């Protein structure tokens, strides 16, 4: 019960802030309509909300780690784009596509999603499939495949996962 209350209040704050940003001004009328709409949305999508068992982001300490992770991802995205641009623009097209299986798995689905999406956004790798054993990743070059073994993403997702 207490956990459920935590989940609902977290979503309420998040969705209400989003509503205020969309409506561009703050009056009593808008706040009331927003509160009603947010309540209805939460009632309708009750099953979609993340419970504390599914994600560790309800912990304020984790949010700081997450923000730091976002900044590191920004730099990785810039690097990845630069690399892909170099490969695409070079006349010989130096690619050596391979499939690699990464034997790493995370307990929570939320962390799996973060890891998979981050791998897709970083240099030369693309998450293809996920199963119980790990992630199937397609790499544009063999160097990119080797770089995945001990990446900074895994370090951060492990930190997020830890209780």
């Amino acid at each position: 019960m207490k956990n459920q209350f935590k989940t609902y209040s977290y979503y309420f704050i998040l969705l209400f802030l989003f509503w205020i940003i969309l409506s561009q001004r703050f009056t009593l009328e808008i706040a009331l309509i927003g509160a009603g709409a947010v309540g209805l949305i939460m009632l309708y999508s009750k099953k979609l909300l993340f419970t504390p068992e599914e994600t560790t982001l309800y912990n304020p300490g984790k949010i700081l780690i997450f923000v730091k992770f976002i900044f590191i991802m920004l730099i990785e995205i810039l690097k990845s784009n630069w690399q892909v641009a170099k490969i695409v623009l070079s006349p010989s097209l130096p690619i050596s596509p391979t499939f690699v299986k990464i034997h790493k798995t995370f307990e929570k689905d939320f962390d799996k999603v973060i890891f998979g999406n981050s791998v897709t956004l970083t240099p030369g790798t693309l998450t293809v499939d996920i199963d119980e054993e790990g992630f199937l990743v397609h790499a544009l070059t063999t160097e990119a495949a080797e770089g995945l073994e001990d990446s900074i993403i895994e370090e951060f997702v492990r930190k997020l996962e830890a209780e």
Partner: protein
Amino acid sequence: MIVNAIILILLLSSAFFFAVGTLGLLRMPDTYTRMHASTKCDTLGAGLALLAIAVYSGFSVISIKSIIVIAFIWITNPTAAHIIAKAKYHSEKKEEARQ
């Protein structure tokens, strides 16, 4: 003046990355490698264009909105790429099993 220069640089690099993404789509040999080019470059291209809007409108609700749009694009784009790659992988597997 300086703000205009920043906006110009952002828009030009956005156009550059979109062009590279499209060129990659045309030059790469198969589905997976094409996904590499189109996901990465489209993410940064759209991100830079929206960042240019954010810089242009200064500190206002519009810039917050465009940053939220960037966040949504950066969550959904890799997910879509993953789904396309997964569909391709599984249909290939099925094809192999049939033969």
